[in-house]
């Protein structure tokens, strides 16, 4: 049956590293589970049981190609990796992360949608997939190498055309923010899933596929690709045709969109043997910052038009490129510089010049080099840094109690270090409230899959950020009406914000599952800047994924059903994993509140001291979701409506135990 599938491969590879065995099973139906993120959640629910820790053999590391990966769909070269994440705070959490590159497509060409890895190898190994030939190989000679050298060695052994995901020393040593790395700078950077791979003694996954991705309706697919290409080139962000240039490269197979990825020469001071550096918004953090001319700082101005000069990262224009490559090579996410530079910089500004006897020489790039290596190898204080910022702060308590307080004193608002995502979002209302709600109900830095609403933010124009509904630009009101059903969604405050947040959560799951880029989907075109009226239907085609999915797979689906109930089903199942395995409930959702509060502020830029307005927003979000307001758990009716009967029974038992 599986060889008749179109769009997706129809096969899932199960790899038991303890037993050294593999098995192929059928991939679940995309009309019910959409694709990668849904498939991963289903495995998480079925196989990652309560009591399992992120580094236990019983934890599963699940890698799935997007349903549209390798179909020719614009930007569709992405894969989703999910597992019980060691980076979750205060407990491990089920988390998913995505990356571009060529691996997802190669996996499809090898005939698989998903690799479900569990167990623990006795000695370091790598997984080799050459179409149907699957083997687990000895990787003792690769253990300890960086991700670049590992990839080069494996390409020498298995051919230049194979695609590789590998961990560096950080993953081997279970650093909580270790990556799974692919090519120069594609990475599963969020969730610390590199440590999960390391705990399984799995150094790398090598894939070579020479098959094909069948397309149900080739001509319709070509037309859909052309249509979506035209629309994404006039979309919300980075509009226009890609810029040609010797340094402009796509980060991902099939990415036809304009972006700011750049390939630049690396001086290679650290002898990594890599002549290039691929930069994007994340990879540039080591280079940008106050000392760097033309540094790109995080935006902007507050609602009163005042410049919000953020505490800049310590950028290193000369050494930054090499520090970026070193971070990659060690298998650490480049976001660490953005978060830790702010944290350590704030401490130093408070007069704290050392922690546990180690001086904070954060203006010295060589200090950062040693810092990275100490983390990757868990040497000295690096062992504590490797636990992640929240746990480090809990242990050393070098400054204010709440991490968020480091930034409140700088006049910002944002989600601080919540689940160790980015440091802050300097958005006017209602964007920061949306951010707060997203973070409340998520398990990681959620922004990478939910840029959509934030991309509307620049339409305000920061200096003229509206204080009243009358000030909201007409074009923004029109987009709000088309996407969210009400202009009020663009007003300052929290009106309709539960609808906005849920819409973008569903969009994120759909995008992740399809394997398309968050920066381009949903496809929304800009109304004219002068505010002149245009028909709502010209704002964009928010069903672009559906057009592509139907042409590629031949599966008949209602376009609206991709978000509800399909994406909603995945969201609820992920919530149920968290409830069952990690005791997720409303009190943990409300843990974001201190990060958004500033009791002295009464001008709408922060939550009030009692945070009543946020709790009310959370109530409305729960109600819209079909979740109860006490625990924030999906109701029995909602789970059964979504066809999640097994989850309904489990949650019912847990409710009984909790006597709720």
């Amino acid at each position, binding site marked *: 049956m599986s060889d008749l599938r179109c769009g997706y491969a129809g096969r899932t590879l199960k790899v038991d590293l303890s037993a050294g065995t593999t098995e192929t099973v059928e991939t679940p139906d995309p009309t019910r589970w959409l694709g990668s993120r849904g498939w991963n959640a289903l495995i998480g629910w079925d196989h990652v049981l309560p009591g399992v820790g992120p580094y236990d053999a019983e934890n599963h590391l699940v890698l799935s190609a997007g349903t549209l990966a*390798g*179909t020719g769909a614009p930007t569709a070269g992405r894969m989703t990796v999910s597992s019980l994440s060691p980076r979750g705070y205060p407990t491990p959490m089920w988390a998913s992360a995505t990356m571009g590159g060529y691996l997802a497509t190669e996996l499809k060409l090898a005939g698989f949608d998903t690799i479900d890895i569990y167990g623990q190898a006795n000695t370091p190994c790598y997984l080799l997939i050459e179409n149907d030939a699957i083997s687990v190989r000895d990787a003792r000679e690769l253990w300890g190498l960086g991700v670049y050298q590992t990839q080069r060695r494996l390409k020498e052994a298995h051919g230049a055309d194979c695609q590789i995901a590998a961990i560096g020393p950080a993953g081997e040593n279970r650093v909580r923010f270790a990556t799974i790395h692919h090519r*120069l700078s594609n990475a599963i950077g969020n969730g610390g899933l590199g440590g999960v791979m390391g705990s399984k003694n799995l150094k790398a996954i090598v894939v070579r596929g020479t098959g*094909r991705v069948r397309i149900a309706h080739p001509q319709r*697919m*070509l037309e859909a690709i052309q249509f979506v290409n035209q629309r994404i080139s006039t979309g919300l962000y980075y509009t226009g045709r890609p810029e040609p240039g010797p340094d402009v490269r796509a980060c*991902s197979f099939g990415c036809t969109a304009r972006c700011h990825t750049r*390939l630049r020469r690396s001086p290679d001071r650290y002898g990594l043997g890599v002549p290039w550096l691929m930069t994007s918004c994340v990879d540039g953090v080591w280079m940008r910052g106050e000392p760097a001319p033309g540094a790109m700082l995080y935006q902007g101005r507050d609602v009163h038009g005042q410049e919000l000069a953020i505490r800049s990262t310590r950028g290193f224009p000369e050494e930054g490129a090499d520090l970026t490559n070193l971070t990659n090579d060690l298998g650490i996410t480049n976001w660490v510089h953005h978060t830790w530079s702010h944290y350590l910089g704030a401490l130093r500004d408070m007069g704290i010049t050392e922690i546990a006897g180690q001086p904070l020489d954060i203006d010295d790039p060589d200090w950062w080099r040693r810092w990275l290596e100490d983390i990757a190898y868990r040497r000295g204080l690096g062992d504590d840094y490797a636990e992640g910022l929240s746990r480090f702060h809990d242990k050393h308590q070098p400054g204010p109690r709440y991490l968020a307080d480091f930034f409140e004193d700088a006049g910002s608002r944002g989600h601080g270090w919540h689940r160790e995502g980015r440091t802050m979002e300097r958005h006017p209302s209602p964007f920061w409230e949306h951010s707060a709600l997203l973070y409340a109900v998520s398990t990681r830095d959620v922004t990478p899959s939910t840029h959509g609403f934030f991309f509307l933010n620049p339409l305000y124009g920061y200096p003229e950020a509206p204080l009243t509904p009358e000030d909201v630009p007409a074009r923004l009101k029109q987009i709000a009406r088309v996407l969210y059903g009400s202009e009020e969604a663009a007003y300052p405050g929290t009106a309709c914000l539960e609808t906005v947040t849920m819409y973008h959560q569903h969009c994120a799951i759909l995008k992740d599952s399809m394997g398309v880029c968050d920066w381009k989907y949903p496809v929304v075109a800009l109304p004219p800047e002068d505010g002149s009226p245009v028909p709502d239907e010209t704002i964009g085609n928010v069903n672009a994924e559906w057009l592509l999915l139907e042409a590629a797979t031949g599966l008949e689906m209602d376009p609206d059903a991709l978000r509800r109930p399909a994406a909603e089903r995945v969201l609820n199942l992920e919530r149920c994993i968290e409830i069952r395995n990690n005791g997720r409930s409303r009190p943990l959702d409300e843990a974001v509140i201190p990060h958004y509060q500033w009791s002295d502020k009464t001008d709408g830029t922060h939550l009030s001291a009692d945070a009543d307005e946020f709790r009310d927003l959370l109530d409305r979000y729960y109600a819209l979701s079909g979740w109860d307001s006490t625990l924030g758990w999906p109701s029995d009716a909602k789970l059964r409506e979504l066809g999640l009967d097994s989850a309904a029974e489990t949650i019912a038992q847990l409710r009984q135990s909790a006597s709720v």
Partner: protein
Amino acid sequence: MTSTQPAHLSAVTAAIQRLAFSADACRACRACEMACALTREGAVSPSLARIRVRFDEFAAASVVAASYCLQCGDAPCMGACPTGAMTRHPRTGAVMIDAELCIGCMRCAKACPWGVPQRHPDRRLAIKCDLCSDLPEGPACVRYCPLAGEALAVETLDGEVGA
């Protein structure tokens, strides 16, 4: 055309066309590969594509390179074909392979200085770029290239670039 042109060009009524690729401008998204395979074969696979782009980010130089038929004026592939399966398209001058006549001997690939013709993964015949000469809208790879005209275009053998 001149009186000294090779006999196999006698049916060509226009200047020979071919793809023009710029490694500097190419983003390596490989949309060209996918559009080619989808258009010619109804499926996506590099092994079915008549143009291939390689992006080797670990290389010291030539990070991006493409492999495709240059539609050579002297076309050694045509001379090597034992069945006469290779002919010039009268409008574009592209070297076409007649699937009915091709026996998949791959002598064309051996004769090609760059080994461009590939064996079809399923059928016993050679495949190579024919500029989608049967399509009035032109080569699919160029139409779907996000940087058409800069990264990928159609040119004539004398170097004149057309959209």
